[in-house]
């Protein structure tokens, strides 16, 4: 089989041992790579019931057959572990050069277990593995860490690093590389628990592809299409363009989801940021789209340029009631520097702000408590979280645990699903998205299903029945699983006429394994069932597929009863039983039974 190395590396930081393991061709085909491959390795390597911050919890980095082939946007690495936020599967993706360098090492994945005896740098150079002391890197930002490591090892190395948040065990710490982040579900906290400050990879061996000439033609064609209308929004304004529109239709989460419209939206809109703050835009490695827009602070203080996406913008802006664009940019920069997921950071601060608004005693001095609309308190609190200082120690646990610790009814406004804070789409008016958020395996996530696309389109009648929405949500999840496993950027999804068929042609040209669009669709279903199976093993029950009560008040028709109806329909579409469990024959049909 071309396109893959057919092996992965296990590194045990407890003993310093390193072992190669084969990945049989049949396994590669069934789980593709990326998130699919890493999910399988997680299932195999994580002891059932393991504490996410225990040495035994594996931290897995996985590549895909498409990485390094010239297929546009396909330079992403999947990071999978048992999440310290949710206690379930935590999967995240990060783009750019790290993915190519990792694949060049000669392995399709790294599985890291154990805990180093001191803060360490893990170096993988082709097949050679070394664990070096890294105490001197503590306290540095991920970017500073990468610069220092590359200065020491050579610029041929690419580096994944954690910031202070990961060092301090902030449960939503991220792993950063090349200015990008594997942001959600707390992989940085797991990396920190292993006393790994950074991982540096370098190599020289990409696998062959089966049909180089055909692939080159197809990749050129796809690259040309990537510059068409399907990506115009991302190229021209970036995802920040969502904010003003979402505000206008009342789905912009505001003041901890208390409202769907924000009076200060215009000041922090993508259009305003473009005109008054934007500096330039960047592209990840091997990407022709170039969606990464950078913005500069203009408040008279020390100038700071920062990458900003809609999710960071809403979470650190409207969700916290902050309408100062300079403050939002500085907050996003702080999250990057400390190495934290901006969505969970903003959402957890917003939870504390609502506590303050409601007079809940958080047990910390008044001047430490953040307030809605108070930009200074937002910035101060983010720093405190990253360093676990004062109230930051409580908020570093995320909104679910902070609310459980605080009590006083504050669980009611901890806006999470399965422990993962909600993204920037108010589900009250978006019923298909609501279903997607409730059932997503990694918790409240817009990125593992993109079910919102159904609601933001004329593809379904507003009065569509539960079954139609369930089918749409499941189909969106399966498509996302395929993209995350081929490690193609989701921003490319509108550039295909028939995504599955065209992706299968590419897969065949890369691997030499004849593959149909239907094969890939089934692989997507298989991978979603695999992720669900892991969650079931770790204690998932139907009660975990939920949304916060706040959004089930009946506005736009979304109630407990309707959500239950949608979830029932979703389980039927999935072939699961009424409790959301997977029948044995279903696992067999999907070819999962003998994989586990």
């Amino acid at each position, binding site marked *: 089989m071309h396109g893959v190395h057919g092996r992965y590396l296990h590194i045990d930081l407890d003993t310093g041992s390193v072992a190669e393991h084969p990945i049989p061709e049949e396994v590669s085909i069934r789980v593709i790579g990326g998130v699919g491959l890493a999910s399988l390795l997680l299932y195999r390597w994580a002891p059932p019931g393991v504490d996410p911050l225990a040495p035994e919890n594996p931290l897995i980095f996985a590549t895909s057959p498409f990485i390094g082939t010239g297929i546009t946007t396909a330079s992403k690495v999947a990071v999978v572990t048992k999440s310290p936020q949710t206690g379930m599967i935590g999967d995240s993706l990060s783009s750019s050069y790290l993915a190519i360098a990792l694949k060049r090492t000669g392995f399709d994945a790294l599985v890291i277990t154990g805990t180093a005896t001191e803060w360490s740098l893990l170096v993988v150079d082709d097949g050679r593995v070394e664990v070096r002391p890294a105490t001197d890197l503590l306290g540095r930002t991920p970017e500073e860490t990468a610069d220092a490591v590359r200065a020491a090892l050579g610029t041929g190395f690419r580096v994944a690093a954690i910031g202070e948040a990961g060092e301090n065990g902030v449960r939503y710490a991220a792993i950063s590389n090349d200015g990008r982040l594997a942001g959600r579900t707390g992989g940085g906290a797991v990396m920190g628990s292993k006393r790994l400050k950074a991982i540096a990879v370098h190599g020289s061996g990409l696998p062959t592809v089966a049909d180089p000439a055909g692939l080159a033609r197809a990749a050129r064609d796809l690259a040309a299409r990537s510059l068409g209308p399907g990506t115009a*929004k991302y190229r021209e304004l970036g995802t920040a363009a969502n904010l003003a529109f979402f505000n206008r239709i009342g789905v912009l989460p505001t003041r901890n989801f208390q409202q769907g419209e924000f009076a200060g939206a215009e000041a922090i809109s993508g259009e305003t940021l473009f005109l008054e703050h934007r500096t330039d835009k960047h592209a990840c490695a091997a990407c022709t789209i170039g969606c990464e827009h950078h913005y500069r602070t203009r408040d008279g203080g020390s100038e700071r340029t920062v990458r900003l996406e*809609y999710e960071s913008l809403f979470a650190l802006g409207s969700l916290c009631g902050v309408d100062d664009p300079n403050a939002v940019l500085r907050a996003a920069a702080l999250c990057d520097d400390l190495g934290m997921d901006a969505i969970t950071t903003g959402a957890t601060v917003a939870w504390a702000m609502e506590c303050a608004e409601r007079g809940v005693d958080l047990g910390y001095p008044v001047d430490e408590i953040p307030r809605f609309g108070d930009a200074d308190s937002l910035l101060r609190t983010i720093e405190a979280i990253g360093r676990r200082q004062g109230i930051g120690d409580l908020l570093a646990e995320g909104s679910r645990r902070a609310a459980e610790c605080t009590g006083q009814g504050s669980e009611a406004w901890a806006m999470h699903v399965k422990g993962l804070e909600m993204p920037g789409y108010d589900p009250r008016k978006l019923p298909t998205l609501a279903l997607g958020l409730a059932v997503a395996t990694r918790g409240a996530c817009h990125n593992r299903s993109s079910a919102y*696309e159904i609601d933001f389109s*004329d593809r379904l009648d507003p009065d569509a029945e539960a079954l139609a929405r369930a089918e749409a949500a499941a189909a969106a999840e399966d498509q996302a699983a395929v993209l995350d496993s081929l490690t193609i950027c989701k921003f490319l999804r509108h550039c295909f006429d028939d995504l599955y068929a065209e992706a299968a042609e590419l897969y065949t040209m890369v691997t030499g394994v004849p593959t149909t669009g239907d094969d890939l669709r089934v692989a997507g279903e298989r991978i979603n069932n695999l992720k669900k199976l892991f969650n079931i093993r770790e204690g998932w029950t139907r009660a975990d597929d939920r949304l916060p009560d706040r959004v089930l008040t009946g506005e736009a028709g979304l109630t407990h009863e309707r959500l239950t109806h949608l979830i029932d329909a979703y389980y039927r579409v999935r072939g699961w039983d009424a409790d959301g469990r997977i029948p044995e024959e279903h696992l067999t049909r999907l070819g999962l039974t003998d994989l586990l």
Partner: protein
Amino acid sequence: MHQAATTVHVELFGVPRLLAGSKAIAVAGETLGALSRALLDACPALAERVIDPRTGWLTEGYMFVVNDRFSRDPTFPVAPGSSVLLVSSVAGG
């Protein structure tokens, strides 16, 4: 007697707003197709990137939202008093 088409304030978001230099444009039309052609007449800066001047209809990357209904149907009727938004057809991110 034929009545003049209703004037609608089409609210612009994203690239259309930047190209037009305005948050809204008042145009007359009883269908989305008519509104699209009227928008092109009122704001030639929208040509090519947002509205195809050959057809007078939206390019692939854009759609209308009429009273919370998303549509790329040029025959979609626009009643007096409707809320009409012109937005990117690529959702989310």
